[in-house]
């Protein structure tokens, strides 16, 4: 992350300094202001969702949801506690329904539960991040609304291709994450049975 941040900011700054040196500082400030307005908006959304979550926890709704999804989550995230699985289930449900901003605080809580105190991310944490990063949204409502607004005659005809694309990317992500975790485990045991073709593919 440090290297990437450095390369991105320094090369952009050099370009700005050559093209229009006056705007360099104002661009950075507009980035920081965007962060402040985003944070204020997020704070409002999180306040509502964390409150609803608090009630859900007290009435045992989390446990009911966990029972429903545990056949999947238990298999995907081996060795995690029931509390962690509950957060994971809630995060996935919010994501499926397209409520990304409601999913974020749940995802953060799930990550907190999964950490083992070391600086390295565990295999389960990576799997969880990959599933979130490849999007599991069922209905891209924002995009459909936007298309309709710009005069599309059939704004919702992107639903099927989106669903297939997101399914493929998520399945690919899960398979790669599982393959890598199997790979790093077998390296520790000095049994080099890495799935080579998959490993190479990720860095192409």
């Amino acid at each position, binding site marked *: *992350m440090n290297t990437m*941040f450095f390369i991105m900011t320094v*090369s*952009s700054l050099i*370009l700005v300094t050559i*093209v229009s040196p006056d705007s360099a500082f104002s*661009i*950075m400030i*507009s*980035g*920081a202001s*965007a*962060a402040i307005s*985003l*944070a204020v908006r*997020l*704070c409002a959304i*999180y*306040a*509502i969702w*964390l*409150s*609803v979550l*608090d*009630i859900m926890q*007290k*009435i045992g*709704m989390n446990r009911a949801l966990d029972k429903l999804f545990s056949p999947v989550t238990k298999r995907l995230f081996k060795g995690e506690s029931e509390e962690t699985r509950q957060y994971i289930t809630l995060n996935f449900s919010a994501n499926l329904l397209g409520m*990304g901003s409601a999913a974020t605080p749940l995802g*953060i809580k799930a*990550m907190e539960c999964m*950490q083992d*105190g070391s*600086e390295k*991310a565990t295999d389960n*944490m*990576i799997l969880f*991040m990959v599933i979130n*990063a*490849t*999007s599991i949204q069922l*209905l*891209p*409502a924002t*995009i459909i609304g*936007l298309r309709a607004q710009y005069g599309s005659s059939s704004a919702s*005809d*992107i639903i099927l*291709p*989106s669903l297939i*694309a*997101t399914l*493929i*990317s998520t399945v*690919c*992500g899960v398979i*790669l*994450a599982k393959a890598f975790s199997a790979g790093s485990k077998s390296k520790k045991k000095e049994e080099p049975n890495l799935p080579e073709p998959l490993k190479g593919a*990720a*860095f192409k």
Partner: protein
Amino acid sequence: MSKYILPVFIIVVLIIGSIKRVGVYDSFVEGSRQSVKLVLEIFPYICAVLIAVELFSLSGLNAYFSRFLAPLFNLLGIPEELCELVVIRPLSGNGSIAILENIYKTYGADSYVARCGSVIVGASETVFYIATVYFSTTKVRKLRYAIPISLFSCYLGAVVACLLCRFI
């Protein structure tokens, strides 16, 4: 129909809560307190990332970078017009929506390019934002193979999206 799901869900939670004698007001106070704490904790990460993203897109480096990658994207079946969108998508959600709106304006919302762009944005996430925010409250600093896998999968999704839009 779907617009009723959210309010009805919250009403149901509130009613069951009060039947089970949960202090609903206390829960909202607690939730809001947690929200402030959480946002304070993730704000530094959001701020740093957004400064870099703003520099990247407003300096014009994004456009150069996209032009440089265009031949590669063309080879994979992603139209040239979408290169900038594909590059900015994992970095910034608002940025990619702005570019998508531009595409709608320039090529029309029903064109092949616009449909491809819609599917690419609809079927992926801001990978770097998730990577920084999700790990922000943990001690984890080494993400190992998380970002390469996520990016590769998202780009595979984009390639598939462009292919699908030709047929569906």
